[in-house]
């Protein structure tokens, strides 16, 4: 891969990838390192010369594996994101996404983010996470239900206030 091609790829994918790592791990302080490591691994792989559409799930897969390595090593067990980073209260929905994400398990955060923010289909999520397609359906359904419960609870509280 040429340097200019990499720059274009980086411009198109780095921000969403960084947001994914930061939000799933709850550690924006380590997201920069993981982001760089993701691209380093990607560039040393044989898949570096593929099209952008094929490249994106692969980048998310590498990032996911790095996150899993951290979880296996007992890192990121606690949500340590400082409150001031990216968690302003949404004025329209009155929902503090930070509270929501904090209460979800890492796997739930991961699946919800890929499905609802990245707009990935179930099969793309399966590719990005290494899960079976059926597992993605079941786990995503549960994560979605849990998120809806948490959001519903929060909305009720807001309405009561």
């Amino acid at each position, binding site marked *: 891969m040429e*340097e200019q091609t*990499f*720059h274009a790829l*980086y*411009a198109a994918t*780095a*921000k*969403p990838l*960084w*947001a994914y790592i*930061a*939000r799933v791990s709850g550690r*924006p302080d380590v997201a*920069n390192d993981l*982001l*760089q490591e993701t*691209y*380093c691994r990607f*560039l*040393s792989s044989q898949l570096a010369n593929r099209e952008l559409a094929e490249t994106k799930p692969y980048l998310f897969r590498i990032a996911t594996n790095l996150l899993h390595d951290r979880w296996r090593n007992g890192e990121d067990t606690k949500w340590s994101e400082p409150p001031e*980073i*990216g*968690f*302003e209260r*949404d004025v*329209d*929905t009155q*929902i503090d*996404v930070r509270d*929501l994400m904090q209460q979800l398990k890492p796997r739930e955060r991961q699946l*919800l*983010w890929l*499905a*609802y*923010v990245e*707009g990935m*289909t179930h099969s793309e999520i399966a590719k990005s996470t290494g899960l079976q397609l059926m597992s993605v359906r079941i786990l995503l*359904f549960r994560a*979605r239900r849990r*998120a*809806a419960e948490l*959001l*519903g609870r929060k909305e009720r509280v807001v309405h009561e206030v």
Partner: protein
Amino acid sequence: MKCEREQQVIQATRDGLWTSSLRAHLRNCALCTETELIAASLKENAATLERQRNLPPAAMVWRRAQTRRRVDALQRATRRPFLIVGALSGLYAVVLLLWGLFQLPQSVSRLLVTSPGLNGDVALAGAALSGILVIAGSCVLALETRR
């Protein structure tokens, strides 16, 4: 419980392109309303997060990847010579050990009782010492290669 139009709702939340039929569906489908709520909250949060963060420059990431690639290539290139050297030093160590088991005790005892000076026993003791150093060196090499 699953709605067939859920994916369309996610897509519309992402790109903001709502058709009138999809809006009408949203008003009547509790599942899609929930989906829209989750997707909109997360999407808004992602946008805020992306706006706020300064990412490392692409050129820096590229340079780091190139350095990593060179180091990996160097490691790959030196792995085989290191393995060969390690195997040879291991073989040498085994031969030396076998030889030492039979020869060295006699030589050392003779060295201790006879007057000092350069003789065959001193040479043997020197060879044994060099052998020990080779064994130690090969152990260090093996450890470094594994690391």
